């Protein structure tokens, strides 16, 4: 069983924070297939948050095919995200390392690297989104 944390003022909607924490737990293998998520009442009591927020997060995870509610029993993990990251993403990680090495070699500091990453990330995101709009 996992426990959720809420970061107020992070700008991320509370329901999304729960979704992200479940995904992260699935990636890290903290949650595995067949594990139960905390009941809505338990999350509500622990975090003092609106039950609809938890419900919305669990629905989103269900929609993604990651969990499944069983009436009267709770919500259970359908599949893990663990193995398609560490192993499958190794080549990407190696590329990224090489890129980071080059960036440092060209004299970029941490902040500049981060800024460059995020501006590029956002630009690519926008490009993808506008392409989607056109089709």
């Amino acid at each position: 069983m996992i426990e959720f944390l809420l970061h107020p003022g992070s700008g991320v909607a509370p329901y999304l924070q729960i979704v992200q924490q479940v995904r992260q737990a699935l990636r890290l293998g903290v949650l595995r297939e067949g594990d139960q998520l905390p009941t809505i009442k338990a999350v509500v009591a622990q975090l003092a948050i609106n039950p609809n927020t938890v419900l919305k997060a669990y629905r989103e995870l269900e929609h993604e095919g990651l969990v499944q509610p069983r009436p009267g029993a709770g919500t259970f993990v359908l599949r893990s995200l663990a193995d398609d990251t560490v192993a499958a993403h190794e080549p990407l990680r190696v590329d990224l390392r090489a890129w980071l090495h080059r960036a440092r070699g060209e004299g970029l500091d941490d902040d500049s690297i981060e800024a460059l990453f995020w501006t590029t990330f956002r630009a690519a995101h926008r490009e993808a989104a506008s392409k989607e709009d056109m089709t």
Partner: protein
Amino acid sequence: MTAVMRAAGLGKRFGRRWALSECTVDIPAGRVVGLVGPNGAGKTTLLRLAVGQLQPTTGGIEVLGGRPAASAAQLSRVGYVAQSTPVYSRLTVEEHLMLGDRLNPRWCWKTARARLDSAGLDPRQRAGRLSGGQRAQLSLTLAVAKRPDLLVLDEPLSALDPLVRREFLQGLMESTVDAGVSVIVSSHVISDLERICDHLVILVASRVRLAGGIDELLASHRQLVGPRRDPATLPGAEVITERHTERQTTLLVRAHQPVDPAWTVSEVGLEDLVLAYMKADAANLSPMEMAR
């Protein structure tokens, strides 16, 4: 979906001053509604109209499908904790509960006892000797134990220390799961509201400025940063606040369509959203309107 509260053209005047005017708002059942706004915006007036402690000057208000405080049955369905958390100072805590039992057909002793225990209140204590926080806890216990369909809380958190506040919110949220009670809560503590509310009403200068589901409101508002320019050239978006430096323009907008990618667009948190609407109105009101 049925409405837990529905107001149309609702207004309340005290002497020459309108505390609330042209308030039209529809609040669906099963929600936890945050009511926010600057001091003197009319929050308490709206809540007192909802529980029938005040009569409207204009317009009408319906709560749980009936006129507020129109009947004993209507009264028993609404729990209310006033800002001042009034108690009978001569009566003990236990006597308050006995009173609650006599006056409320759906009174639940189990709920009352459990809340009293968790709040650490001594049943034999006279209410007049309770601290501000303890009095708030007693008022809340009475309001929750009558098992209302709607709980109206006017600034319930201000007298509570952080630990008690969190415990109170936990209990409140649990009771919305168990009993499906709707809640309307006014507060200045946005971080608390962000946790517990799924619906928001912003009241500024006696008018409803914004109302709706919090997720939808956050999804439709964006902060834009870009080279300085005239916001009048922004199609498909309503500008709520604008700031300019010589080179840069920062806007908070309600966008009805995707925004021009030339802007750097970021999401807006609840606190920024509330502050923007409060600020926008403070800036837009002429001195005459302020005095009114």
